[in-house]
């Protein structure tokens, strides 16, 4: 980590580590040395939406998984759904079943990576431990069994993709109308063989985080704890839904603001505003307007929004989660980790159910159609939150406009607020210790942001950062790349 204090009392943390992508944080100190402001800057820009224009809409389910190596399935699923709206078709029962399965696999692998590899070093090794070892290598040295379990849990999620599509990353095979190929009986049995180990590992993770909560209650409850609205996808009875459902917004007290919103109507409720210091826009709940309408998505939001879970083990943990704030939304950002683990448990249970459905190996995996409408919108719950793909086409089926509304983008206002809250709590003056800065980074890691997705970015582009004082004069210029 290359941290520095600039002439104008700005502390720069760059790059932010153990997240997906590249970013920096600035912390502005006032004359009294107290934190005046803090910002999370995203420096990447890719323009994925723009270069898809002119392509045939049917290509999108195979192009968009390339946006991200962590959540390619969510992109492909949302894309296929948008295409199905354009074609006016629905997937077959088995096509939907297999898509659900591969989507759950991605949820498992992504959440396992986030918790066991990226965040557990802070919990197990300590916030102030040697940063050179505060990572998977440190976990491997101190808790090799946990490290191995984390690796294998991720491997299980990846193996679902591999056995369904032949690829672990940047999967192909999710197509408009369903799936391109069926699941073999051999692969069904092989995947079922993972369930017991995956469940056991997830329960170990849940036990770990709950013990951490008990031992660090004050820190956990005060860590970037602030009210926001929440958005998530639910089923008809308000149950957690990750693959296909309707949208629900709740307010900071848990009151349902709008329920069972068709994803295709998302623009009636969500608007975005660009900000001048980041490539990530600021989305907000339209009826409340900019500022008041900031909301969060992702595991914490989904469990705050949901009325219940679909599977028994996850439901038991869900009830415990709901008891944390007496049934009202839990606003503490640190609880993202716990909710991520509950979702992982739910995903493993649901994957087992699907694998035991006799129709999962049916050959009836795809319906077919052609270009019928000029607009399509698809959504799904990506590991980091609600994802929308919105396409417009001309009469030949070529894309004229693409809008991708990504989970990390929707969490952008909350990530900035989290950085500010944690900086105020732990950073006191210029001489902030590395451990304090690690806590500021950790506020971001709670959201498990994927900057490659949200900015549709590729690598880190050369960047010049100008730092201005209160008069607007540039007092420092930082160059990268």
């Amino acid at each position, binding site marked *: 980590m290359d941290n520095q204090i600039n002439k104008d009392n700005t502390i720069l943390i760059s790059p932010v580590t*153990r997240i*997906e992508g590249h970013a920096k944080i600035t912390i502005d100190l006032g004359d009294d040395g107290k934190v005046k402001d803090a910002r999370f800057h995203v420096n990447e820009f890719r323009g994925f939406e723009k270069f898809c224009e002119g392509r045939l809409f049917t290509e999108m389910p195979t192009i968009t998984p390339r946006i991200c190596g962590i959540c390619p399935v969510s992109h492909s699923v949302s894309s296929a759904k948008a295409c199905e709206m354009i074609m006016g078709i629905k997937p077959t029962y088995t096509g939907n079943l297999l898509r659900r399965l591969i989507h759950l696999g991605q949820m498992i692998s992504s959440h396992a990576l986030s918790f066991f590899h*990226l965040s557990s070093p802070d919990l197990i090794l300590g916030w102030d431990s040697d940063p*050179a070892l505060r990572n998977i290598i440190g976990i491997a040295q101190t808790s090799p069994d946990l490290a191995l379990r984390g*690796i294998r849990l991720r491997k299980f999620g990846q193996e679902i993709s591999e056995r369904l599509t032949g690829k672990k990353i940047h999967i192909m095979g999710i197509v408009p109308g369903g799936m391109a190929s069926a699941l073999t009986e051999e692969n069904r049995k092989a995947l079922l063989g993972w369930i017991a180990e995956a469940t056991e590992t997830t329960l170990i993770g849940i036990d770990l985080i709950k013990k951490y909560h008990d031992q660090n209650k004050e820190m956990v409850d005060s860590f970037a704890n602030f009210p926001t609205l929440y958005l998530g996808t639910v089923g008809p009875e308000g149950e957690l839904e990750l693959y296909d459902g309707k949208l629900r917004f709740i307010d900071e007290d848990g009151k349902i603001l709008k329920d069972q919103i068709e994803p295709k109507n998302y623009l009636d409720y969500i608007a975005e505003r660009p900000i001048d210091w980041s490539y990530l826009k600021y989305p907000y709940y339209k009826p409340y307007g900019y500022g008041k309408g900031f909301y969060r998505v992702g595991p914490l939001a989904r469990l705050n929004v949901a009325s219940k879970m679909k599977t028994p083990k996850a439901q038991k943990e869900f009830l415990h989660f709901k008891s944390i704030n007496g049934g009202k939304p839990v606003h503490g950002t640190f609880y993202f980790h716990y909710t991520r683990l509950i979702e992982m448990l739910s995903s493993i249970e649901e994957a087992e159910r699907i694998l035991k459905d006799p129709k999962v190996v049916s050959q009836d995996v795809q319906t077919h159609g052609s270009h019928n409408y000029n607009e399509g919108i698809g959504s799904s719950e990506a590991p980091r939150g609600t994802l929308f793909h919105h396409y417009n086409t001309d009469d030949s089926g070529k894309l004229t406009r693409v809008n991708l509304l990504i989970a990390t983008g929707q969490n952008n206002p909350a990530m900035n607020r989290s950085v500010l809250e944690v900086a105020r709590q732990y950073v006191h003056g210029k001489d902030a210790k590395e451990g304090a800065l690690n806590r500021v980074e950790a506020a971001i890691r709670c959201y498990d942001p994927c900057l490659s997705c949200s900015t549709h970015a590729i690598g880190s582009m050369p960047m010049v950062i100008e730092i201005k004082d209160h008069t607007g004069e540039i007092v420092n210029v930082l160059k990268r790349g």
Partner: protein
Amino acid sequence: MSLNEGNINKTLVIGIGNPLRSDDGIGPYVADCIEAQGLSGIKVWITQQLNVEDLERMLEYKRVILVDASLAGQPLDFRPVEKSTEGDLSSSHHLSAGTFVNLAGSIYKKNLNMHLCSIRGNNFEVGDKMSPEVLQRAQEAVKLICNSL
């Protein structure tokens, strides 16, 4: 955990890179050339990125050879990978070869016999054509690797 014992006497050649980013495709190109030689005891795998869970697969083999394009350094370099003693993992997208060797020992209690063949690229822009001098280096790399088997 059960490893595939059938691979225990084989060498795994992993070509890493994106053939649509010009010289970044040199790793997969070299891997393809080695596969075309039809040598026994060789398994070739092409990928765009290595993840930590790939370690289990590597441990099935007697030896692993990574072939990847480099941005700087020697035009062609072929050497054993030393264990990385410090964490270089700032995100899941960046896992060094040395980290794999480290994790093999600390998690799996096994020695990972890994070599890295790095070929310096000139152009990493979008495109499927590789630079002539990089293709030349690739042929030298194929010879080097095959002679080492």
